[in-house]
């Protein structure tokens, strides 16, 4: 009977693996297609005029997208803009503003005031056709604000960026369409970023909450998602885990319209759960975030992995070695690697030295409190190692081996071991009269249900991954339909 089940399950899992891999290939194909669509002109722009030309193209793309309510076009426009980001200059920007906005209009004067007035001014005025119709699309206005904002942040003019973003938020409150929603969500992001860089994130918490409320009322899904993440980030920045969790659990269910936002959400959720001792959930969130994160987002992945390693340790598991040998992360994860090593050996002394050696890194990562929590798991692995290797050992020897430094060493060692037995970490009994720990013979693990349970979790993981991959494939089409409907 049992054998039959195992054979059947092996067959199932093989099927699932094949399907999952197929789905992934499909996804890859799609991504490649998207990349081919982008116009080649983007790559060969070295001089200013071509950058301006590209910006104009992006603007017309946005215009087209806004008229037909096509979210995909706006996405593409945003991607193109990010490629141009490093080439933005004050002169190009003011030329672009002159092109899009009617010079002398309110928006134009306001936006130009943020740009540094340089000596190329006269040259710029040469190419000002300003033949644009008086009617300005809200999407284009948002785009102009976005460009200026990104420019200011890149130039590290955070105070100006703060003013500019606050103004844009006030101006664009009333605009309400699905394409404007995408742009607004980007604006919110840079709004929060500029305040974070300037160091007063707490100031805008009230504003963000108000924006979140109005986004919810208007069913602006993209803004809602971004704002939810920004608020979580805001809370976590000030260690307000309690408030963050309350907000997260009461807020609307996260629909994961954009992969980036979803990754962030998972990371924040993972952090909250770790602090609140829900390690199993935290591990799921953090690992998923690390997997889903885009390959170029190395910093994000490092952060996910750091937290994931600690959650592994807190669960009493030893993280896989491959985590630490990933490309471009090796150096950043080094302290955590040494920590894991100390943990694996179960040597309290070594663990303490590692924690001290890298204490500055850990407090910078805000993980030092968590590492303090790992301490008792280190003791536990030590006990586990001892109980596996000795059939009978005196408590005094255990205390010596574990480097316990208490006054009442033997008594405390006895309690610690008793607790480990109760929590199921080791299978043994204590003999108080003789002061011994007697290990029970370890049974054959294959005679228990253990392998079957492990197998079940793996099958479930594969099935879930398949389902999620399917869902990820389905999403864009649904969105387009919605965009056409509104």
């Amino acid at each position, binding site marked *: 009977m049992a054998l039959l089940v195992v054979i059947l399950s092996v067959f199932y899992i093989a099927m699932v693996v094949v*399907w999952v891999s197929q789905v992934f290939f499909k996804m890859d194909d799609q991504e490649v297609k998207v990349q081919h669509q982008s116009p080649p002109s983007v790559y060969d722009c070295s001089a200013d005029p071509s950058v301006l030309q590209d910006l104009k193209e992006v603007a017309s793309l946005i215009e087209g997208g806004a008229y037909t309510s096509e979210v995909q076009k706006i996405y593409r426009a945003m991607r193109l803009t990010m490629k141009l980001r490093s080439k933005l200059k004050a002169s190009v920007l003011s030329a672009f503003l002159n092109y899009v906005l009617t010079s002398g209009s309110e928006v134009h004067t306001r936006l130009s005031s943020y740009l540094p007035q340089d000596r190329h001014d006269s040259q710029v005025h040469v190419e000002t056709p300003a033949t644009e119709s008086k009617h300005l699309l809200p999407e284009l206005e948002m785009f102009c604000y976005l460009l200026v904002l990104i420019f200011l942040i890149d130039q590290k003019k955070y105070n100006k960026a703060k003013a500019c973003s606050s103004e844009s938020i006030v101006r664009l409150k009333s605009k309400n369409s699905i394409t404007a929603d995408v742009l607004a969500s980007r604006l919110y992001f840079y709004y929060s970023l500029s305040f974070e860089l300037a160091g007063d994130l707490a100031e805008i918490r009230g504003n963000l909450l108000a924006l979140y409320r109005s986004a919810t009322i208007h069913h602006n899904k993209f803004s809602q998602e971004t704002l939810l993440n920004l608020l979580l980030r805001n809370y976590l920045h000030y*260690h307000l885990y309690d408030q963050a969790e309350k907000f997260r659990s009461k807020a609307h269910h996260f629909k994961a319209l954009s992969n980036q936002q979803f990754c962030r959400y998972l990371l924040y959720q993972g952090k909250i759960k770790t602090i609140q001792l829900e390690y199993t959930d935290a591990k799921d969130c953090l690992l998923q975030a690390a997997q889903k994160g885009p390959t170029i987002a190395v910093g994000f992945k490092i952060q996910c992995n750091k937290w994931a390693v600690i959650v592994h340790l807190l669960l009493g598991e030893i993280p896989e070695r491959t985590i630490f040998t990933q490309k471009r992360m090796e150096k950043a994860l080094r302290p955590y690697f040494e920590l894991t090593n100390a943990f694996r050996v179960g040597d309290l002394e070594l663990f303490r030295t590692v924690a001290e050696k890298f204490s500055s890194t850990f407090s910078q990562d805000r993980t030092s409190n968590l590492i303090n929590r790992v301490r008792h798991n280190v003791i536990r692995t030590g006990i586990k190692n001892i109980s596996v290797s000795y059939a009978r050992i005196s408590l005094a020897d255990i205390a010596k081996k574990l480097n316990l430094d208490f006054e009442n060493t033997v008594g405390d060692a006895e*309690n610690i071991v008793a607790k480990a037995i109760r929590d199921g970490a080791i299978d*043994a009994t*204590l003999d*108080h009269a003789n002061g011994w720990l007697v290990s029970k013979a370890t049974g054959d693990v294959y005679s228990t249900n253990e392998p079957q349970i492990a197998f079940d979790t793996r*099958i479930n993981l594969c*099935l879930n991954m398949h389902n999620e991959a399917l869902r990820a494939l389905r999403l864009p089409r649904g969105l387009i339909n919605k965009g056409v409907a509104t």
Partner: protein
Amino acid sequence: MDPKITEVSQTFERFKAAFVRNDFDTCTRLLSQLKVLLTAFTSLPPLFQETSNAIHELTIARDIYEHAIVLSVKMEDQDAFERDFFQLKPYYTDARGRLPASPQEYPILGLNLLRLLVQNRIAEFHTELELLSQSALDNPCIKHAVELEQSFMEGAYHRVLSARQTVPDATYAYFMDLLAKTVRDEIAGCSEKAYDRLSTSDARQILLFSSDKELLQYVEKEHPEWEIKDGFIIFQKVKDSVPCKEIPSLQLITQTLSYARELERIV
């Protein structure tokens, strides 16, 4: 000076006098009066209006709540402690930049950590801990609570109990006594799993009783399933020594069916 502030400070003086005399009835009566009076101040949380007397009002309100917490500890009322602490918290967090730090801040935060530990609300304990800066963690009051939690999680119960002698503040004693009870329950729970049998004298020592009679009463009340025979406590009955050798057929069937269902969706 504002007549309202004068009234509050006068009532507060009377409260403090009663507080020193340990006259709890008068204290609670005056405290509820004070809390009503405080609602008239607009500079207090949640409004935080910038009035001319704001600093003075905030300071006096903070002082009142700090006393209220100590009072609740003296009266051994944990619910009142929790309520008062939540009212006090904004003065430490949101008003931090405007008020000079209170000397009572760390003792009270440490006390709150201890309360969470006693009530076994470890998740909240750690959430509170994250809010504290490095310098706060080095404060003896906070350090005391943090070390207690570590010893408690490790199972070093003797150290938890010996910390009773080194309390940083007299108000901590109440919670430390409560903690001792929790520790005894923990030890009892661990012992029944870890030992096959214990002699009564050893059990008395391990469970920290001073006489055999107390031990027997405790066993009778909390653990009637323990068997006492010939001067030994036998825990054997508690353990389900025979592991289940059957195949969990129902569980297997449900699992296999769910795989089949999922696969059907794929194919």
